[in-house]
């Protein structure tokens, strides 16, 4: 059974933002949503998560599938006394599989880590949260080379473990390396995808 089935779906905020779109996401599959800036990719993810609005069409999630969602806005951790371990515990994400340059500093406050370490840990806290369906909006944003290099096999491994992953990214190399297939999101004429 598909983990997510979308049929002729039109989503947006106050008004439709995208043209009707249809696809299925199977367990273990990584599907990329592509399109230019403002096409409505993030809006579509929000609507599929039940936060944005669905105007028409059908969206069926496997009722047993738990959802993990990484948005482009990363956790606001500046000045917050929160350790890496605590961030992972909050989303019930396992630290197993973290790269050594992160697993060694999980006891430190997040705001004492480097920007790259912080970004990767925030991503990891969602990537490894117990979920069968993952929406990742620009997961490679703000990651350094080491982070991107570790993310590719980590995504594969997560999919191999049975999760269906819907991914938005503007990095063509990253999409080509990580995704099984891609589907284009087209904006609705005269639409504004912002909430």
């Amino acid at each position, binding site marked *: 059974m598909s983990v997510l089935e979308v049929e002729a779906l039109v989503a947006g905020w106050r008004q439709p933002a995208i043209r009707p779109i249809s696809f299925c996401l199977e367990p273990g599959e990584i599907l990329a949503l592509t399109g230019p800036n403002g096409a409505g990719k993030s809006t579509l993810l929000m609507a599929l998560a*039940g936060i944005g609005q669905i105007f028409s069409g059908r969206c069926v999630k496997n009722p047993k599938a738990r959802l993990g969602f990484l948005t482009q806005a990363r956790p606001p951790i500046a000045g*917050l006394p929160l350790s890496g371990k605590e961030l992972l515990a909050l989303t019930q994400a396992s630290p197993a599989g973290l790269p050594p340059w992160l697993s060694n500093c999980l006891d430190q406050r997040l705001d004492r880590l480097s920007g790259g370490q912080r970004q990767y840990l925030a991503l990891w806290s969602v990537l490894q949260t117990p979920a069968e369906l993952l929406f990742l909006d620009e997961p490679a944003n703000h990651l350094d080379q080491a982070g991107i290099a570790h993310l590719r096999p980590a995504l594969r491994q997560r999919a191999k473990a049975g999760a269906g992953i819907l991914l938005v990214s503007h990095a063509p190399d990253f999409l080509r390396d990580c995704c099984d297939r891609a589907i284009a999101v087209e904006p609705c004429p005269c639409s504004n995808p912002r909430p």
Partner: protein
Amino acid sequence: MELQLELFWRPCLTGAALALLLPLLGLYLRLRGESWAALAYGQIGAAGALGALALGIPTLLGGLAASLMAAGCKPRLERWQPGAGLFPLLFLLGWSASLLLAANLPAVEGLGAALFEGQLYFVSREMLGAAFVMLALGVAYLRRTGWALLLLSLHPVLFLARGMPAWPARIGFDLLVAASLALAVMCLGVMGAFALVFIPPWLAFVLAPSWRKALFIAPLLGFLTYSLAFVLALYNDQPFGPILALTLTLTAFLLLSFGKRGTEN
């Protein structure tokens, strides 16, 4: 014996319960970027207490009702005018209402002065009981919902996408803060209560190496500075609110100048 209870233990225990509770609430308020809510709810509570006295109903009830009403209206007010202007607006509303009531009704003038000075030494038995009930409620609530408050602040979309109800962490927390502040201003004064909500959590944010330790450091700092202020105000026969605020402010200067910043290693 009864006189000793009246003069010493009743205010001492009432303040101690609040000195443990307010910094805990302040941590989560700071997390949500809402530290100024303490001032707003406190001042609205003060206005409510003065209004209640003018109407001849119990001041504690009046303060609680006004403060809870402000917290209950917060979601609607935020939808009406999103942004950071809500709490200053509520504070100014409460402040002007309090001063006008005190200026025009001689019967409430005394309470007005007490609410600004923080006359902890004259708290009633009901307030002692209410302080411990609020402490128990606050600790139980935060044990159960603290993680949700954190997750909602750090990964709000993940929280909502999981279909978890957000209202206990949103309106539930607002009501708890409003009720606690309404009670606290009647014991510690508006600024004394605000200082306890603002300063120990701020220091914990700077100094603690983890959230767990911040949950320990903030109430500990609140309790220690409160204890010192209680003794200082009692022996020097000074109003309690300003002494508490001064003790906390000096502690902040001291710890921020010489304290070790929060790193585990």
